[in-house]
């Protein structure tokens, strides 16, 4: 019932949108935690977390399926353990 435009490719605007989404719903922070010290990007880590929660393919990359999920209308409460 909800119409979402098909996403053909990820744009620079999408990357900014995705970062805001991850900050809001998956607690993406600027802090450098243990994983980022090991060279794992915090964005990649949070993208993987989001993809796992939504049953998407876990790539850690901002693909079209992931950005399409992010653009769906939703509740404003954060997801996963972050909500606690």
């Amino acid at each position, binding site marked *: *019932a*909800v119409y979402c435009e098909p996403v053909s490719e990820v744009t620079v605007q999408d990357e900014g949108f995705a970062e805001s989404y991850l900050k809001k*719903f998956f607690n993406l922070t600027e802090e450098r935690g243990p994983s980022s010290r090991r060279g794992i990007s915090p964005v990649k880590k949070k993208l993987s977390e989001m993809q796992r*929660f*939504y*049953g998407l393919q876990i790539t850690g990359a901002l693909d079209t399926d992931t950005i399409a*999920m992010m653009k*769906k*209308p*939703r*509740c*404003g*409460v954060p*997801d*996963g353990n972050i*909500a*606690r």
Partner: protein
Amino acid sequence: FSTFGSNLKWEEKSLTYRIENYTPDMSTSEVNDSIEKALEVWAKVTPLRFTRVYTGTADIMISFGRQSHGDYYPFDGRDGTLAHAFAPAPGIGGDAHFDDDETFTFRSNAGYVLFMVAAHEFGHSLGLSHSDDPGALMYPVYTYRNPDTFVLPRDDVNGIQSLYGYYSTV
């Protein structure tokens, strides 16, 4: 299903709610009906009972607002975030806020069905967090469902009963 934590639930089984204001998208009676039915969804499977109050502070304060609306979690305009609610606690805890930049409807899919959005938010008001089951009411993403035939999915029943137990006539 997932909860905010076993200690984040109401100790009282009898809770109050108050509708502070209304969306212009629907008639007053449609809003009242949608809110009442959304709370009934949870009351049907638990010992929880809800009473409407018209003045003072209720356990669940319900309001419509747009952008910054007084809780440090501003809404984002049309689409995106539709509403949010707070886990059981004194003060703002339990309260549910709806983004009035959205178009809410009684049962039409020409907007977001208020009953569906409210039933989800009241799950938060009672202590449930988001489920990763795409069929669950507590899945974070909005899905249209016919309010006249809606039945609370098993995942949500299990979640709320893990906090409050089963329906009781006593």
